[in-house]
C-alpha cells in the first residue's frame, strides 16, 4: 500500500496481524459439519466454542492441537446429527399432537359452551338479584362485533401460520458488518486525528444466516477509492465462527504516522459452509480519517 501505518494492538484473541493463513482441512471440515448441524436446529454452542479455540490455536501456530480439536469434533458430529434428526421427528409429532389437541379442545368448548358457561355462572352468581338493565353492553368476548374482529385476526394468523409451516419459508439470510465509535456505539467517529494519535474503534459482525458461519474480517488502510474487495494484504485480520443470530464486537486500535486523508476499510468475508471456500460477502464498512501534522 505504500503507507506507513503503525498498528498498536492486536485486539482480541482471534486477531492476527498478517493475512490469514489457510486453515487446516480438518478444521474446515469440522466447521462444515457443525454449521450443517446448526442449520438443522442442533445446539452447537459448545462445538462452535471449540472451533473458535482451534482457530486461535491455528493463529498461534499450534496446528497439531488445532487439528486434534477438529478431529474430536468430526468424531462427535455424526452422533449429534442423528440426535438432531430424531429431535426434528419428535417435534413434528409434537406439532401434530398439539394441533389436534387444540382443535379438539376448541371443538369441545364450542359444542358444550352453553352448559359449561351456564352452570359455572349459575354456581357463582345464582344468588344475585336480577333487575332490568339499562341496555348498555358490558361483555367483551360475548359481543358479536368483537367476535367478528377476533375471527378475522384468527383467520389472518392461521393463514400465515399455515403458509409458514407448509412452505418452510425461513427468515431472510444475511450477514452484517459495522464500525462502532470509541464508545462502542454508533457515532462519535474520529474524522481528523493527529499523526500518531491512537484511534479507538470497534468492529461489529452479525450473523443472520440461520446457521453458524466462520467470518473473516480484513482491515485495510488506504488512500485510494478503489471499491472492495481491495487488492493486497490486509493490515489486520479478525476471524471467528458466530452462532446464528450472534453479534461479535471486537476492539480495533491503530495510529497513522503520516499526514493525509486515509480510508479505513473493513471487508467481511466468510467460509462458505457448503463448499468451504473463503468468499467475499459483498459487505464492507469504511471511515475516512484526516491525519494532520499537529
Amino acid at each position: 500500500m505504500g503507507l506507513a501505518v503503525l498498528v498498536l494492538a492486536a485486539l482480541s484473541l482471534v486477531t492476527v496481524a498478517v493475512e490469514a493463513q489457510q486453515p487446516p482441512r480438518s478444521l474446515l471440515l469440522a466447521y462444515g459439519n457443525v454449521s450443517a448441524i446448526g442449520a438443522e436446529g442442533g445446539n452447537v454452542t459448545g462445538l462452535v466454542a471449540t472451533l473458535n479455540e482451534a482457530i486461535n490455536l491455528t493463529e498461534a501456530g499450534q496446528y497439531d492441537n488445532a487439528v486434534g480439536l477438529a478431529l474430536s469434533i468430526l468424531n462427535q458430529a455424526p452422533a449429534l446429527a442423528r440426535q438432531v434428526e430424531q429431535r426434528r421427528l419428535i417435534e413434528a409429532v409434537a406439532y401434530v399432537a398439539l394441533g389436534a389437541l387444540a382443535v379438539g379442545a376448541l371443538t369441545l368448548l364450542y359444542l358444550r359452551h352453553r352448559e359449561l358457561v351456564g352452570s359455572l355462572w349459575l354456581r357463582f352468581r345464582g344468588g344475585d338479584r336480577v333487575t332490568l338493565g339499562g341496555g348498555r353492553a358490558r361483555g367483551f368476548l360475548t359481543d358479536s362485533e368483537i367476535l367478528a374482529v377476533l375471527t378475522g385476526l384468527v383467520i389472518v394468523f392461521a393463514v400465515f401460520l399455515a403458509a409458514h409451516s407448509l412452505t418452510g419459508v425461513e427468515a431472510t439470510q444475511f450477514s452484517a458488518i459495522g464500525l462502532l465509535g470509541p464508545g462502542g456505539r454508533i457515532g462519535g467517529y474520529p474524522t481528523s486525528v493527529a499523526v500518531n494519535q491512537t484511534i479507538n474503534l470497534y468492529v461489529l459482525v452479525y450473523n443472520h444466516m440461520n446457521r453458524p458461519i466462520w467470518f473473516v474480517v480484513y482491515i485495510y488502510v488506504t488512500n485510494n477509492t478503489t471499491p472492495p474487495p481491495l487488492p493486497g494484504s490486509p493490515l489486520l485480520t479478525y476471524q471467528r465462527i458466530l452462532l446464528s443470530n450472534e453479534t461479535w464486537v471486537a476492539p480495533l486500535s491503530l495510529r497513522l504516522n503520516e499526514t493525509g486523508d486515509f480510508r479505513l476499510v473493513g471487508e467481511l468475508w466468510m467460509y462458505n459452509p457448503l463448499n468451504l471456500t473463503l468468499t467475499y460477502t459483498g459487505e464492507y464498512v469504511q471511515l475516512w480519517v484526516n491525519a494532520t501534522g499537529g
Partner: protein
Amino acid sequence: MTVNQLVEVVSREAGLPRSWVAYEVYLMWKRGELNIEHEPLENAVMFLASVDGVWYWVTLAITLASLAVVMLVKGGPLMPIRYLLGAVSVLFMPGYSIVEALYPRGDELAPLERLALSIGLSLAVVPLVGLILNYTPWGIRLIPIVISNTALTIALLTVAALRKARYASTPKDCFT
C-alpha cells in the same frame, strides 16, 4: 328475584336445561338487558377473592404467561404460542389495562370501542416505553422491553382492579 329463581322458572316453563337458560341470562346481562346485583364487597381483598375478581387473575395469568413464553421458548413446537402471546402482550394488553383503569365500571364504553382503544393505546404506549428505555443503561433490548412492558401492564391492571373494587364496594344507588 334471584338468578336461580329466574332460571328455575324459565327452565320449567320452556322445558330447557337450567344451564342453557343460565347461559341466556348471562348473555342478556352482558348485553345490558339485565342487571345482576349483589351485596357490596367490603374491600379490595374481598373483591379479588370474589367471582368479580376473576377478571384480574385471568389477565394477570395471560400477562405472566406471555412473559414466561417469550423468555423461555426459543424454538420448537411452542413457537406459535410465543408469537400469539407476544403479539397480545405488545399490541393489546398495555392499552387494555389502561382502558380498564380509566373505565373500571364496564359499561361506560361499548365493547368495540374498548377493543379499538385497547389496540390504539397499546400502539401509543409501547413506543413510549421504548423511548424511556433508550435513555436507561439497559437500552432497547428484548429482556428490558419484555420486563418493562409486563411491569407496566401489571401495574395498570392492579390500578384497574383497585378501582373496580372501589366501585364494587359502593352501593349501586350512588351511580343511578
